[in-house]
């Protein structure tokens, strides 16, 4: 089969599942069939994408195919594929993780009445995400970007009977929409300037056709979209709230794929972005700030999913920071490794939440006694956590090391320091979570039967990828990312500094939470004055947005409506009423006394006669 046909299969397999579920498998008793159809088809897509990866990765020519979607005298928009190495890797990652999560979801959602709706939405999401990844046109990317937003909205609000998911869903949609305005403006500006937004053109020629000033503004607007989707400060606060959705959704959408779309877009358009130094600096600062703030937020959190959500925000900021520092390879590499271990951590979180009788609190998980059946899960939790810390030899280490290496090579020593601090904090809060969760308490767990095999497979596969998967691909990746295949003194220094930092953080974490007699909840954070207050108020970001919505939008909308009712309508009504009043006045002449009329007639005709006689 041709590569294009394979690509078509891997892109549209999820969409076919979506159509089947939406239009054919509507009955209540078909809900499990619907789920199985979705899993099978997305499995097919994942398989085909892997085939594509192995067949195409050594090729340097991108696969392109497109049709004109819209055309007018000064512009043209395309829909189609652009499959180079970057999108190929991302495609495979998304397909595989989507398949794993869908497989896992069957266990997690099997008792939920809305399982059909769940699979319908999640296949739709997967399709949109996959198409976004391989889209040839920035406009096409925008289309799927928005569809991702919709799918995310629907899945966050999946349990819409409860008020919190509803609130979280609307918050997520509006905040990302706000960012999307920037992306749309950037797309439109590029269209106005270049008459096309095809990605091959943008990454080869755009920089030479635009002035640095124009590139700066376009990138800043574009980055606004990234800030919304990839939860960068100050548009990040929707992501922790988005944890109201089902846990597999958090695994797929709010950690591994959709939120990575923003970072992916930056990677995709890096040649364009790199034309503006100041824009790069701006991206760097926002990334570092986000990463730091989110890491601090995670320090004292008790909700396991929220810890993971903050760590996602922090890691996304880390990637953005790396891209801003020019190390796009490192950023992208980290995006790939992060996708695997973070989705695994979320799936495990789903498992532990289930065990702790549907409580997200890590301290209630600590009370659960884990039997032998849970050994695998606890072990995987540690694998994922240590990968998140960036400890050798896990996949997180590889990508983080790449970023640190690039930073050092680029002589960004300030950023290097910040990254080190973030890495320290990350290792601390992650192992805090892992220590507390894996404590063995007395409460009997909620595990009814042994876990189904497919669920174990999905989690273990992700664990395997975290453990050794990227080592297998390392030669190919090394070549693509231009990594150093041999280590010199600089690399060794780098390795020791980061590893010592991580080990130190794990030690601190062990001191507060790992020991048998540990009782602390917040660790050392309570010793720093003001910090816990700041964390409790979430750095006042939510206050700020609430203020914007209340004092901005709602106030203006009340004002507008007030104007409508009390000014415009009053004027309109007065015009009407004036007409009526004039009519009333005129009607008063009509007194109904015929004799009065005759008198008037006589007097008037008398005057007429007088005028006719004497007037001339």
């Amino acid at each position, binding site marked *: 089969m041709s590569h294009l046909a394979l690509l078509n299969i891997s892109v549209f397999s999820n969409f076919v599942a979506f159509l089947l579920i939406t239009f054919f498998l509507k009955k209540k008793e078909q809900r499990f069939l619907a789920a199985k159809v979705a899993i099978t088809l997305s499995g097919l897509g994942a398989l085909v994408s892997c085939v594509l990866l192995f067949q195409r990765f050594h090729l340097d020519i991108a696969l392109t195919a497109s049709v004109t979607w819209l055309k007018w005298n000064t512009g043209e928009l395309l829909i189609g594929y652009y499959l180079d190495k970057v999108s190929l890797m991302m495609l495979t990652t998304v397909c595989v993780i989507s398949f794993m999560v869908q497989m896992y979801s069957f266990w997690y959602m099997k008792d939920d009445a809305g399982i059909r709706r769940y699979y319908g939405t999640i296949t739709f999401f997967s399709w949109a995400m996959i198409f976004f990844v391989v889209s040839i046109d920035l406009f096409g990317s925008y*289309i799927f970007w928005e569809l991702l937003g919709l799918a995310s909205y629907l899945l966050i609000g999946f349990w819409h009977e409860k008020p919190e998911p509803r609130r979280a869903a609307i918050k997520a949609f509006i905040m990302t929409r*706000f960012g999307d305005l920037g992306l749309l403006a950037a797309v439109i500006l590029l269209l106005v300037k270049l008459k096309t937004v095809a990605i091959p053109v943008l990454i080869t020629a755009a920089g030479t056709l635009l002035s640095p000033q124009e590139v700066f503004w376009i990138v800043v607007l574009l980055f606004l979209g990234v800030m919304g989707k990839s939860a960068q400060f100050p548009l990040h606060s929707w992501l922790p709230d988005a944890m109201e959705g089902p846990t597999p959704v958090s695994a797929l959408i709010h950690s591994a794929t959709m939120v990575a779309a923003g970072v992916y877009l930056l990677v995709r358009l890096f040649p364009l972005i790199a034309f503006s130094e100041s824009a790069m600096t701006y991206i760097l600062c926002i990334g570092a700030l986000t990463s730091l703030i989110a890491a601090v937020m995670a320090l004292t959190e008790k909700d396991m999913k929220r810890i993971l959500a903050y760590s996602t925000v922090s890691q996304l900021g880390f990637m953005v920071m790396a891209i801003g520092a020019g190390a796009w390879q490192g950023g992208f590499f980290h995006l790939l490794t992060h996708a695997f271990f973070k989705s695994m951590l979320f799936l495990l979180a789903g498992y532990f939440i289930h065990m702790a009788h549907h409580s997200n609190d890590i301290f209630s998980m600590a009370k659960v006694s884990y039997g032998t059946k849970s050994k695998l899960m606890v072990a995987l939790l540690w694998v994922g956590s240590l990968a998140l810390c960036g400890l050798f030899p896990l996949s997180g280490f590889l990508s983080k090391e790449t970023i640190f290496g690039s930073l050092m090579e680029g002589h960004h020593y300030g950023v290097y320091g910040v990254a080190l601090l973030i890495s320290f904090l990350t290792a601390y809060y992650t192992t805090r979570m892992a220590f507390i969760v894996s404590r063995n308490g007395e409460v009997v767990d909620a595990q009814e039967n042994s876990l189904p095999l497919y669920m174990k497979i999905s989690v273990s596969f992700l664990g395997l990828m975290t453990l050794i998967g990227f080592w297998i691909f390392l030669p190919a990746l090394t070549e693509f990312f231009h990594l150093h295949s041999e280590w010199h003194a600089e690399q060794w220094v780098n390795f020791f500094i980061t590893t010592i930092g991580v080990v130190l953080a794990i030690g601190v974490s062990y001191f507060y939470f790992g020991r048998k007699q540990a009782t602390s909840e917040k660790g050392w954070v309570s010793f720093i004055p003001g910090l816990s207050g700041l964390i409790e108020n979430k750095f006042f970001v939510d206050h700020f947005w609430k203020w914007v919505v209340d004092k901005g939008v*709602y106030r203006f909308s009340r004002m507008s409506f007030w104007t409508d009712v009390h000014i415009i309508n009053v004027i309109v009504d007065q015009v009407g009423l004036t007409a009526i009043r004039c009519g009333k006045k005129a009607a008063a002449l009509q007194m109904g006394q015929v004799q009065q009329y005759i008198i008037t007639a006589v007097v008037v005709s008398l005057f007429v006669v007088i005028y006719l006689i004497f007037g001339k």
Partner: protein
Amino acid sequence: MNLPILSIILLAPLLAMALILFVKEENSRLIKSIALIGSGISFLGSIYLVLAYDYHSAEFRWVEQWFEVPGWGIQFILGVDGLSIPLVLLTSIIIFSGVLVSQNLKFRVKEFFALLLLLVAGAYGVLLVLDLFFFFLFYELAVIPMFLLVNIWGTGNKTYAANKLTLYLLAGSGLVLFGFFILYFVSGLNTFNLKDMLELASFSPGMQKGLFILFLIGFGTLSATWPFHTWSPDGYASAPTAASMLHAAVLKTLGAYGILRVAVALFPEGAHYWQWLMLSFGVINILYAALCVIVQKDLKYIVGYSCVSHMGIVMLGIGTLTQAGLNGAMFQMFSHGIMTALLFASVGYIYEAKKTRNLDDLKGLFKEMPKASTFFILAGLTCLGLPGLSGFVAEFLVIYATFSVSYVFGSLALLGLVLSAIYILRILKSSFWGVPSDKSTAPVGVDHNWKTALPQYILFSFLLLLGICPMILIQFISQTSIVLLRGY
């Protein structure tokens, strides 16, 4: 074979109306079928137009001349081009689904359908005739039945709404009539024939400026341009479902159609002079009306105001005076029509089942009536500009065109996208998601079956089709917008 296709489209509803007048009131099924057949014939006719139209040229096609009034320069000429064909199709879709929506009507059925068909005949007339005298005549024909429709079958504060709507529209058309007379005398051609006028007439710059603003405000009132928009939410909130659908979808776009057909086509210099005003009107309409929606409680008011907001996009697109902008404006006219009709149809259905339109009393609609709610949600998503549905294409083109003219107006128009997201999601959050309240009054099984959902399926399929393949519609418009802009 040379069928007088335009005459068929125009006369079918009139004939159906005449037939209905001879049927007894009790025989309501016959009345409904006659109305359905009449509108169905027009529907088929306009589908034929769409399929047979050669979009490479922008000339008037299928021109028919019935008669002329000698010495007065009044001719009854019918003809269509790429500007009117999509709107004829729109009118057909709306009246067909409007008649379908009204199948449950029980009160004074005969008059209702007669008036509805009269209204739509007026709308067809405006789109088909190429003579300003008959243009005006048909416009009035379309306005007057609305007064009765609101007054007799309306809800709420209907007398006030009906008076306001009718008087407003008459005031607007008064300006238009005044303009037509000036055109008649100043052009020096002594004719109302629009075709001749487009080819032969030329106006001095000063005259162009004056006439353009006259038509802009006159037609602008009809298309609910701020600050002449307040008739629209009140009127639509009170009108019966089918009437709101028709009025919001078709009559409102007739205003914009008039601006394009008469003002933009005849007065290029005037249009350039008043460009800033059109852009400002457009942006104000978008933002102001969207802000107004956010605090509304009544579903119909929400749709009514959002409708005003959409017309802002049309006005903005026209104001850019570029091909992309005009394409976008015309696309928006079509897509707005279908979307608003779908919204009104869904609201009408919900109202019929729940007997209330107040957001505070409606809870958990999605659980209670999933199918009916789905259509509202889908139309709402079109309204907030979701890609894949037609609203997005129009908004994108218009905003693109606006950016190519002015960054300031473009950025302001962008904000409208967030506001529309806020108001749509707010409604979904408060009334569609969640659990139905215990006091739920809806009878069991209120949800759609395929019969009641048919009009919504028809409407939505167009939204989806155009959202996925916008070129279908754009190819009609593209050539026409080049011709409209040839004087620029």
